[in-house]
């Protein structure tokens, strides 16, 4: 019954045009992809060795304890939330963005930690030309989507579009170059 949403149906023309701007990019780390602490500067941890950069899982593997892979999970919407998302999309399609917004608010109350709802919210904010809030929703969705490739790539797309809409193209490209975006 529950399956992830198709990314297309809810997109307003504004969001679609934002999507059309997508482009490939370089591989700088995103704002929160900070490298782990440099060894010399870790006062409390005796004999800590240089930690590897993120995204290179093998590098960090001490012989006896390779780090576990991130938990894989796939997010779905409950029937109740999905009916609200469908309703919100219908409202957005007939141009009633305020109604769509209130309906998604209601969906968020049902499933506040489901990244798929935040992705919808982000798309709606893009359609409303509220790139700042879209960015917040995109980042929130991305954080919640950890371990769910599909949700990550949808969240990343919302975030990249939101950044681009704010003329922050460099940051947008950084997001687009993340592994989960492929």
């Amino acid at each position, binding site marked *: 019954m529950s399956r992830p949403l198709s990314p297309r149906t809810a997109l307003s023309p504004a969001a679609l045009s934002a999507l059309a701007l997508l482009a490939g990019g370089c591989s700088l780390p995103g*704002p*929160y992809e*900070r*490298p*782990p*602490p*440099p060894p010399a*500067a*870790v*006062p*409390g*941890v*005796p*004999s*800590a*060795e240089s*930690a590897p950069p*993120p*995204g290179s*899982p093998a590098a*960090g*593997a*001490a012989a*006896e*304890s*390779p*780090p*576990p*892979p*991130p*938990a894989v999970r796939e997010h779905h919407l*409950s*029937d*109740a939330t999905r*009916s*609200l998302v469908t309703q919100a999309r219908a409202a957005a399609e007939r141009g009633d963005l*305020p*109604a769509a*917004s*209130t*309906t998604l*608010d*209601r969906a*968020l*109350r*049902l499933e*506040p*930690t489901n990244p798929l709802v935040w992705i919808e*919210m982000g798309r709606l*904010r893009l359609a409303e030309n*509220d790139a700042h*809030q879209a960015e*917040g*929703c995109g*980042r*929130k969705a991305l*954080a*919640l989507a*950890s*371990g769910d490739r599909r949700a990550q790539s949808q969240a990343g797309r919302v975030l990249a579009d939101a950044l681009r809409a704010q003329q922050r193209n460099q940051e947008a490209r950084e997001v687009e170059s993340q592994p989960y975006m492929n």
Partner: protein
Amino acid sequence: MALSRSKRRRIVLVGGALALALVLGLVGWVVYLDRLVTREFKGRLWSVPARVYAEPLELYAGAPVSADELEEELRRLHYRPGDPATGPGLYRRRGAEFDLHARRVRFVDELREPERLTVRVAGEAVQSLRHPDGSELPLFRLDPLLVGSVFPVHGEDRIVLAPGDVTPLLRAAIKVIEDRRFDEHHGVDPKSILRALWANLRAGRVTQGGSTLTQQLVKNYFLSDEQTLGRKLTEAVMALRLEARFTKEEILVAYLNEVYLGQDGERAVHGFGLAAEYYFAKPLDELDVAELALLVGIVKGPSHYDPRLHADRARARRNLVLDELAGAKLIDAASAARAKAEPLGLRPPGGGYVPAYMDLVRRHLKRDYAEADLEAAGLSVYTTLDPRAQAAAERALARGLRRLDAQSRVKDAHLEGAVVIAEPNTGEVVAVAGGREVGADGFNRALDARRPIGSLVKPAIYLAALESGHYTAASLLDDSPVELKLGDGSLWAPQNFTHELYGPVPMARALAESMNLATVHLGLELGLPKVIDTLRELGVENPPAPNPSLLLGAFGLTPVEVTSLYAALANGGFRARLRAVRAVLDEHGTALRRFKVEVEAAAPPAAVYQLDRMLELVATRGTGRGASARLPAGTVLAAKTGTSSDTRDSWFAGFTGSYLGVVWVGYDDNRPTGLTGAAGALPIWADAIGSLRPASFEPAIPEQVEDRWIEFATGLETRPGCSPDAVAVALPRGAELPARAGCTPSPPGSITDKIRSWFRTGAP
């Protein structure tokens, strides 16, 4: 001696002029009074307050609502048992199945027409929703509960009755008791004045009033208890003018909305609608005969007959009213006798009367809306109030403070407290309790008590450390003496609460056990400006001055501000602005300005995740460990205790997956309580949150971090079972740790699941 003609003429002329002036003056006076009272009356009559609604209860398969709770909610919304086929507002319960005929309701986003459905509940959750034709509904929301009315501009809260809301019994009873000839007189009733005069003369003192309802109404408008002749005359003229201009019906309804019925702390309780909520937590049309008779009886002297202070007097007065009602054949003798045998039935805490929450609503309306927009008549304010959470917060606070008072050696003062509960992901405030008695003194501690937060500040310091990239949960801090010469030359030498020194301790343990010295060393190493930046980042609008004592929380925040600070920690580093108002609709159902969920990145999710895992240790191994035991088994929570200097303030802030709660306990006069955060605020938090079936705190793991096992005492890496005090922490992925000899770190796998199940079984 006869006066000369001309002299006589002069006297007549002067006398005439004087008489004319007198008449003109009199007319002018009457016109003046007429204008005054008419303006007042119209102003009140037409100023329709905004109606304020709670969040509607959402029903869907899996919604955490038991059959009894559903019925309780239906009753609260004035649904009556009956045959739902006969009309909206009726329901029929068969075991755990409800047939319901929902009413026409205006929601923020739709106007829903009456609808029939069947709700099946299984145990603690809704199982299915169906239309009469058998088709399934994905979800359905009940009516939003009306929790009050507010004049958003001047802030009074009322429950204003429309003529249709006035029950026939109240209509008749108020006339029988207060003004039998209301339907005949023209505003003043000479007969009853004479009767009262006679009775007073015989008694030798004032025993009867003789004022009509209209006169009482006028008196209420201009709020004076003066008993002078001039005052009475003014009142009488105004009453006559009101009667000349308005219908009996308008005057009666205005009277019922205006009459003074008691004192709720600073707030005067005006009108039968609010009084029904204040005394009985019920809407007026649900009062039984005994309750209605009590309210009608109180009119004569709300403080003299205060049912909370003078129960016997109030009961005698109520029974007298019941006799009179029976005498006037408004009720039969049998039901009067039954009603006289009933207890007063005053409300327990909770219910639809939520003055502390309404304070927050008023402030958010002021903060977020244009005043001119709020002046429109007939607004509807939709709030994020959750009546069940509100009742839980009030109950837990009242109960907890009573227990703490009983244990305390202080006998000349009562402990006070405040509770704020919010939804962590959206910042929606679902409950506010501002003191031990609901609205007892008008001082809302949740919003206005700005008190030192003590150790509640520590997570901000540890977050700053994690964000710097130079520290992890396993980093060793130095818990050794601190002596600092301050700018003013004084010496600052803080101590641990236990007055012990712990030497090198891993950061996770220093936070869990709330060690002051280790934290001060860490904060000084990071630098005060860095810590202040982090506080600001987390939403503290007025961060403290850069004194070292800020590292131990020697600065004040209100419980609502603390909630805002912890919201970012409960929300994976995202700052969601706290809000109590979801939307305001005008009388046509159009939104004034719709709120959006506002969410903004405040702190790096990976650092916040590492911090949150440490805050989980507070609740399992540290100062907050009393909380887990009081929650449903297996509920994971993250929390922090706070105690200000000399135990003047006892704090607890904690979050599960579904609720963020902040509790403060202390004395209003700021004397020491002898209570730590764990002893005072924690049990109240656990009582409130524990009764709400909280979801476990299970944040998504950012890809840059991983869960690892370390020894709580040493910070050495280990595996469960190998060291007696192995705890799980989050570290940057791949960070290298020295390991306990002979304890090879546990192999990879779904370590998170293991950790969770381990906590659930309550191992070490």
